C-alpha cells in the first residue's frame, strides 16, 4: 500500500506501565486540513501526538510520507540561541554531524530558515535570542522550526496554552493559513473548545483514551 499524503493513524494504542492510555485510535488528516483534538488534562492528547511523532512506542499504524514535524507545548526552544539558530535545528535531519557542529549550514538551508521565519511573521528577528522574544514570538519560532523540517504533516501540542487571547488567535490563524496555503496536514491539541470550534475543520474529543468525533464545520467540506 502506498503511503498517503497527509496523515493516517490506524488502531493506535499506547500502554504505560500496563495502563492503557490510548485505545484503538484511528483518524486521518488530509493535506490542507486542520484537525483539533480536544480533551481534559490527562485525557491522552499529548501522548497521541508524541506517539504519532515517533517519540513514544505504540501499537498500531501511523502512515505519513516523512516523519511529522512537531510544535511542542512550551516551545522547547534553546533560549540562548538566536531565533534563526533554533529554526536551523529543524534542518538537522538533513545535515551531517561535522557540518552542524562547525555551524556550516548550506546556503540553501539558511535561505529556507529565513523563508520560514518570514512565513511566521518574524522577518528581521532572526538574530534575536529566543529568550528575549515574547511568548507569541517564541511559539512562532517553534512553528518555523517545524516548517524547516519540510514535513507535510504538522503536529502541535497545545500551541496556545501559554498565550494571551490575541496571540492565541494569531498563532491559530497562522497554523490554519499554513494548512490552507501550503497544503500541510495540521493536527493539534487544544483544551479551549471555543478556539477549537472557531479554527478546526474537524474536531475530535479524547475521553478515557478513546477518540470520539464531534462534528465537521459547516463552512468547510469534510476532508475525509
Amino acid at each position, binding site marked *: 500500500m502506498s503511503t498517503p499524503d497527509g496523515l493516517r493513524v490506524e488502531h493506535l494504542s499506547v500502554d504505560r506501565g500496563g495502563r492503557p492510555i490510548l485505545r484503538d485510535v484511528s483518524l486521518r488528516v488530509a493535506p490542507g486540513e486542520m484537525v483539533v483534538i480536544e480533551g481534559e488534562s490527562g485525557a491522552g492528547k499529548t501522548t497521541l501526538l508524541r506517539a504519532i*511523532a*515517533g*517519540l513514544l512506542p505504540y501499537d498500531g499504524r501511523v502512515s505519513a510520507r516523512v*516523519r511529522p*514535524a*512537531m510544535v*511542542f507545548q*512550551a*516551545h*522547547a*526552544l*534553546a*533560549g*540562548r*540561541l538566536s531565533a534563526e*539558530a*533554533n529554526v*536551523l*535545528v*529543524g*534542518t*538537522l*535531519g*538533513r*545535515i551531517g*554531524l561535522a557540518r*552542524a*557542529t562547525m555551524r556550516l549550514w548550506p546556503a540553501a538551508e539558511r535561505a529556507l530558515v529565513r523563508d520560514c521565519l518570514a512565513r511566521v511573521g518574524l522577518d528581521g528577528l532572526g538574530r534575536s535570542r529566543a529568550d528575549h522574544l515574547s511568548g507569541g514570538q517564541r511559539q512562532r519560532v*517553534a512553528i518555523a*522550526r*517545524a516548517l*524547516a*523540517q519540510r514535513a507535510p504533516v504538522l503536529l502541535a501540542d497545545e500551541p496556545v496554552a501559554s498565550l494571551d487571547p490575541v496571540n492565541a488567535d494569531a498563532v491559530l490563524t497562522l497554523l490554519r493559513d499554513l494548512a490552507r496555503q501550503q497544503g500541510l496536514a495540521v493536527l493539534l491539541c487544544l483544551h479551549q473548545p471555543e478556539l477549537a470550534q472557531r479554527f478546526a475543520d474537524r474536531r475530535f474529543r479524547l475521553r478515557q483514551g478513546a477518540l470520539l468525533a464531534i462534528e465537521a464545520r459547516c463552512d468547510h467540506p469534510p476532508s475525509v
Partner: protein
Amino acid sequence: MIRRLGWAIALVVLYAVCIRVVSPDLTRLWAGLPRLARWLASSFPPDFSGPGDLARRAAETVAIATLGTTVAAVLALPLTLLAARPVAPLPWLYHPVRAVLDVLRGVDGFVFALIFVAAVGLGPFAGMLGVSLHSAGSIAKLWSEALEAADLAPVEAAMSAGASRAQAATVVLLPETLPQTMSVLMYIWEFNIRASTVLGVVGAGGLGQELKNAVDLLDFSRVMAILLIIIVLTLSADRLSAYLRRSML
C-alpha cells in the same frame, strides 16, 4: 530513637579514632607559638629581591594552571558526553566512564605531579600534566551534571526533527549550557592557580619551588614575599573568574 542513638555512637567512635590518630597536643602548640611569633617577626619586611625570578615563578604558576585547565577541558569533553545520561551514545559505557572520573578526581593533582616529575623530570611541564589529569575528572563530572540538569525539551525537539544524539548535544545542549560549563571551567582554573602554587614543593615548577627553597633556608622574609604574591595571584584569579562568569550569563 535507637537509630539516632546508633548514629550518635558512630559519631563518638569516629571522633575517638580521629583524635587517637592525630594526637592533638595543645602543650606542643603552646610551646611552638613563640617560635612562630619569632618567624613572623623576622618575615618583615618581606624580601622582594630578584623580582625577575619571582615574576618568572609567578608566570610559571599561572601558565601551569592555564595550560593544565585547557588540556583538562579537552580531555573532559569526550568523557562528559559519555557520562551525561541525556546524550550518552553508549549507555553501557556510562558507569565505567563515571568510575574513571572518580579515579581521576580521587588522586590529587599534587600526587599526579609527583608521578610525572619521576616520568618527565623536574619543572612546570610535570606540574601541568598533574593538574590536567586531576582537573579532567573534576571538569567532566561537573559538566556532565550541568548537562543532566539542563532543560531537555530543546534536545527532544531537535531529535524529533531528525537530529542524532550527537547533533542535539553539540548544536543545542552544549551552547545552551555554556554559562554553566564556562563557570565550571573558570572555577577549576581559579582552583588550579591555588593548587599550582604548591606544586613546586615536589619539583613541578611555579612559586612553590621558590617557597620550598625559602622555607628550607628558614628565610622567612622571602617566605612572606612569596605568600603575598600567592595571595595577590589567587585573589586576582578569583575576581577575574567571577567577572567572566557574570558576563557570560
